[in-house]
């Protein structure tokens, strides 16, 4: 069985479709993109946009009130990195909605926040998003605080 040519062709074709799937959407023709999504998403899904094209200018945190009525961060100081990542993921998703003008959190993320509240032993009280935003990227330490009450349901 001669395998000299099929291997480079398969590697090149596969890589080209991965590139069409992961490159910025405006660099890839629509039809190629659609073909790449159909091929890549089921088994080879990936995206390489961590802090790209730019890192977010606003950090974000979910906050709830504690027993004394003070606002406290929700689960972000958990000792486990995967727990902190889940909490951050919820905050980023809520922030995306706020940027688009919605304070009502999308249902799947609202459900996740509800589960987080239960795990943290917090009552399902008010939840807010606190963003600390850079106004001048050359002075990243100077951040402006923005607070947005979130609607979970």
């Amino acid at each position, binding site marked *: 069985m001669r395998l000299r040519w099929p*291997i480079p062709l398969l590697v090149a074709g596969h890589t080209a479709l991965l590139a069409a799937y992961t490159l910025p959407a405006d660099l890839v023709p629509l039809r190629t993109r659609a073909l790449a999504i159909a091929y890549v998403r089921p088994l080879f899904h990936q995206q390489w946009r961590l802090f790209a094209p730019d890192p977010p200018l606003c950090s974000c945190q979910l906050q709830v009130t504690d027993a004394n009525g003070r606002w406290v961060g929700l689960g972000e100081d958990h000792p486990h*990195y995967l727990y902190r990542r889940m909490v951050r993921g919820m905050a980023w998703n809520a922030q995306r909605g706020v940027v688009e003008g919605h304070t009502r959190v999308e249902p799947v993320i609202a459900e996740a926040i509800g589960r987080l509240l239960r795990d943290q032993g917090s009552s399902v009280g008010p939840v807010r998003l606190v963003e600390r935003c850079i106004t001048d990227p050359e002075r990243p330490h100077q951040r402006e605080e923005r607070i947005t009450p979130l609607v979970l349901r």
Partner: protein
Amino acid sequence: MTAAPTTIRLFRFALHLWMLGFLLSVLPVLDVLYIEPLSPRWVPPGPFARITHTIGAASMAMASPVMVAVGIVLALVGLFRRSGVIAALVLWWVQINLMGQAWLAGSGGQQLMAVVLFWNIGLSVAEGSPGSWRNGLRTLSFWMIRSQLVLAYAVTAVHKLTGVLWPSGDAIGVVLTDEAFAPSLVANWPVLCHLVTWAVLVLQCTIPFALWWRRTRVAWLLAAMAFHLATAIWLDIPEMGFAFCVVLLIQLSEAEGQWIMNRLGQARGTPSLP
């Protein structure tokens, strides 16, 4: 196109080590990842979901801890014995299902490993005679992983070049002053932040080319590993940093792989790894 058998053995050893480390690291949060998960159940459309989201599709949350246990055993076995196609297939299935179940805890590193574990199934086929389908499958899988690694760097470089803060040198300062990450002290030295930002950009733009030449390969591999270890420690993505360190090994030539194996063999008092 040929494969490098010694490099493949070294790579597979590191791959099993990563899998073992990752699965052991999830044990303290097994309940919130899989048993009473914080991530709501989500199953993508399409026929492949039955394979990639078997647990989610069947609502069998208690199956996840069993899968973690199976994954730990298979990863351990893979460290000490040459594991076969079935073991590689199950390991991939475990990883992709656990990732789908705890999707909020996912990362590029876990995605990279899911793809690499898929091609590891081809690498696990026993070597055959030159020109046989077995060797063809091993060679295909070997080059798929190499091209996957290079693509990840190239794509992230393109994304960053289309932004504003990476070319201007401000990106690292912005990232490090986010309370979620450390060390924010570095952001007090803007010149250092600019230099690190541009160094990262240069590394990610050049590595897809530098990895193919003997003269540049080792220096770039070491630089990339140092970069990924730094991200593992300071950007709270340990499994992603280590995943890239593992996959970078696939770029070693046969002679370079042999050199490392000999050193490892000497350190272990045995001639080679499984």
